[in-house]
């Protein structure tokens, strides 16, 4: 059929105007009728502005990256962020109790792991108390998560200090993509959960959500119950306005998690308000600015009461100039932290403290010769403990064909001190014999080189493999000093490893995904170190791990997913290796109703994951989901 009579003058004028202006404004906006008069080629030449403009093709990112998709999350049946992170075969995820996890990439995993940077919709969620994440305080309506990008390896230049071993970037869907009602309710032997979301409106697009989780207690290997059940509530609203070349996003949310422990319960709670402005001021150029306030409260009777306020302001700007694509930005974070020390056993001193944090960074992606791009950049970041830190990177990528990418990178990353590294004392009053703070503690440093290859040789097959060598210096040790033990920087470590993943779609209805890692780590104490903490306190890591997932659709309205996961023995010998098998079956009863039954750790004996006595056996979870 004919796509209509071309009215050339109008069409050419429109193409010229939009081409000239780049981002169209009111007068120059082509009407939908004008657009229909353009040819396919002309449509493809109009520059558009979107908040999602930055979404790069995964196949072009010169780093080790794995993306957990919304479909992966839904088909796994999991209800919490840490459980969803198990879907990334390049991550170590070990569950320590009902609420706590040790999560890291490339080693150094502990429940207080401090070398990963975690963001939720642009908000940094690691705690400056120990530069790690309290996973018990992080939850989301998982059905509205668009993807979780997991970057392993140093990414400090773009993401900042603490992006030492990697970045976990959780991105929820835009309010435009979550219109209508979605409600799920589920019950199982590990937890019960209900969540509801409603999205409505245009300009602004709005979304409101709420989630309730009742987490059941865990068990020791000998069958004894652990007093660690919890009740969690969270909710929030999000709005998005689009105006000309600009988008404005406002997000507010809060949570409360009350966790049983032997004495009383600990309550972690908080709320945030975030505003974000994204625009494309000129062709090929993007600008983003955001501000947020967050309050996090930690009420741990007999131990600590902590109230942390975070005020964070940042912007970044990317533009194109010939073969160059520079990206630069700056940010400032102001964090008044107020602690009540409740235990005679330990204390943070001073109890009240203001933490300030500032950075500026610049990087440039240069297309040097055909198929080859060099990215070089540096970030200067200032913290109250060690002053200025520098985080450079250089990356080369060679893409001889759209479906093959070879990349190499050399980077330096820094973990800046946290309050626990410097201001933690035990007992609470002098003499602090067991721990006398870390007055000399400096930043931990990683220098690393990486090499990777990623390919999609057939449309149904894609894979990635990356290798790395890392040298960590000034790792934390516990040294005897006059006046008591102190945190110092007495250890170094050499690491090397390989990680990779592959995806193979055998048929329309059957996909296999697998991946894993092997890693080797040596920790050496400096000659002058008399570390009493033991290198095991730096992390307990398997030397290998893998996952294989099979996702198949059966009989038109059913889904069958099977998922095997293996973790090698943890360094230090606290946990022998184990393999767990999970399965989920989903039935679409009607177009708007889905029923699913999932089982985790279905075979084998109960096993520990973290070596603290808590063990895990088979659990079931049944859920019904309604989306009219």
């Amino acid at each position, binding site marked *: 059929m*004919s796509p209509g009579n071309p009215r050339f003058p109008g069409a050419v004028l429109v193409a010229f105007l939009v081409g000239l202006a780049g981002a169209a404004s*009111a007068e120059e*906006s*082509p009407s939908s009728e004008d657009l*229909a008069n353009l040819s396919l080629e002309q449509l493809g030449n109009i520059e558009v*502005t979107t908040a999602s*403009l930055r979404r790069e093709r995964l196949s072009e990112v010169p780093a080790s990256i794995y993306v957990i998709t919304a479909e992966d999350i839904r088909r796994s049946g999991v209800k919490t962020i840490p459980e969803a992170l198990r879907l990334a075969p390049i991550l170590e995820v070990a569950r320590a109790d009902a609420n706590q996890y040790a999560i890291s990439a490339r080693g150094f995993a502990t429940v207080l792991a401090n070398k990963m940077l975690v963001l939720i919709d642009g908000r940094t969620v690691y705690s400056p108390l120990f530069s790690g994440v309290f996973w018990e305080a992080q939850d989301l309506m998982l059905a509205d998560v668009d993807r979780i990008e997991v970057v392993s390896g140093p990414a400090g230049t773009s993401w900042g200090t603490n992006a030492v071993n990697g970045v976990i970037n959780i991105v929820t869907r835009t309010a435009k*993509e979550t219109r209508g009602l979605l409600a799920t309710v589920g019950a199982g032997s590990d937890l019960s959960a209900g969540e509801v979301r409603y999205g409505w409106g245009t300009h602004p697009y709005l979304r409101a959500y709420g989630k309730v989780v009742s987490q059941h207690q865990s068990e020791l290997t000998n069958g004894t119950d652990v007093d660690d059940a919890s009740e969690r509530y969270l909710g929030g609203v999000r709005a998005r306005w689009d105006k000309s070349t600009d988008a404005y996003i406002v997000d507010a949310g809060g949570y409360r998690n009350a966790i049983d422990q032997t004495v009383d319960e600990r309550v972690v709670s908080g709320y945030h308000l975030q505003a974000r402005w994204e625009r494309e001021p000129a062709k090929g150029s993007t600008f983003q600015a955001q501000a947020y306030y967050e309050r996090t409260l930690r009420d741990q009777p007999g131990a600590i009461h902590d109230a942390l306020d975070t005020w964070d302001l940042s912007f970044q700007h990317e533009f194109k100039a010939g073969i160059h694509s520079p990206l630069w930005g700056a940010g400032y974070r102001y964090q008044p932290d107020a602690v009540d020390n409740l235990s005679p056993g330990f204390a943070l001193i001073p109890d009240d403290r203001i933490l300030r944090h500032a950075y500026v960074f610049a990087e440039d992606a240069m297309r040097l010769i055909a198929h080859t791009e060099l990215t070089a950049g540096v970030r200067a970041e200032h913290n109250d403990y060690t002053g200025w830190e520098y985080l450079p990177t250089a990356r080369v990528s060679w893409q001889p064909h759209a479906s093959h990418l070879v990349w190499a990178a050399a980077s330096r990353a820094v973990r800046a001190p946290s309050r626990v590294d410097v201001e933690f004392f035990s007992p609470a009053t002098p003499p602090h014999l067991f721990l006398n703070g870390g007055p000399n503690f400096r930043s931990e440093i990683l220098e690393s080189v990486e090499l990777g290859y990623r390919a999609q040789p057939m449309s149904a097959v894609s894979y990635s493999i990356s290798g790395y060598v890392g040298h960590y210096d000034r790792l934390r040790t516990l040294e005897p000093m006059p006046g008591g033990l102190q945190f110092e920087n007495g250890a170094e470590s050499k690491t090397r490893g390989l990680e990779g993943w592959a995806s193979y779609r055998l048929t329309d209805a059957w996909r296999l995904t697998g991946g894993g890692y092997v890693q080797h780590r040596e920790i050496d104490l400096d000659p002058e170190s008399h570390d009493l903490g033991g290198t095991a306190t730096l992390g307990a890591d398997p030397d290998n791990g893998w996952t294989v997932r099979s996702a198949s659709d059966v009989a038109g309205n059913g889904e069958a997913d099977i998922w095997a996961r293996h973790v090698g023995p943890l360094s230090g010998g606290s946990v022998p290796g184990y393999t767990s098998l999970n399965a989920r079956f989903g039935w679409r009863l009607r177009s708007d109703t889905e029923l699913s039954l999932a089982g985790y750790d279905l075979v084998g004996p109960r096993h520990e994951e973290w070596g603290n006595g808590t063990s895990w056996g088979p659990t079931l979870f049944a859920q019904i989901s309604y989306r009219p």
Partner: protein
Amino acid sequence: MRTHPGLRLARALGLVALAAAPVAARMAALGVAPAAAEEMSGEDLERQIKAAYLYKFSGYVEWPHAAMATDRTPLVIGVMGDEALAEDLENLLRQRAEDARPVSVVRVKAFEPLPTLHVLFIGRSESDHLAPLIRAARERPILVVTDTEGALALGSMINFDVTGGRVRFDVGLASAQKSGLIMSSRLLAVAQMVEKRSP
């Protein structure tokens, strides 16, 4: 764009300043923000370009005779998971009533039986169910168009890609052929990438 008739009238009468407040209030009540109604965002433009593509693709695709008997057979475009795009497409069609071939838009809900369709667009909000939705559409001669990275491997026939700041598309030629559709060489020439291997 969505200019409120009240605002147009008020402006025509030179009453913008006087009328702005009540009009804004009324428009807010209708869920139309005045600022947004006046200007087109990049996101709106991107969506309208996709709507225009959806309209135009049919000119470069041949359906089996059973599905499209003559060049006057009404063309039906289904839109799933993107109400704003369905509205844009309707606006576009309203202004093109003179076309020889009648074209209509139907909204299709995920997992409900598909009506008679020639083109089906599946929006990003359905990306966690893409495989079964595409599979269901491929049982009939329907041109499946998607907006999600990696969708060609699931059997999509045309997948939009905005990574370079322009709305381009990749073509899954083998998938289209399997469904009995013939794509013109012109369409293949404009495509950013043509996947000839069967997923």
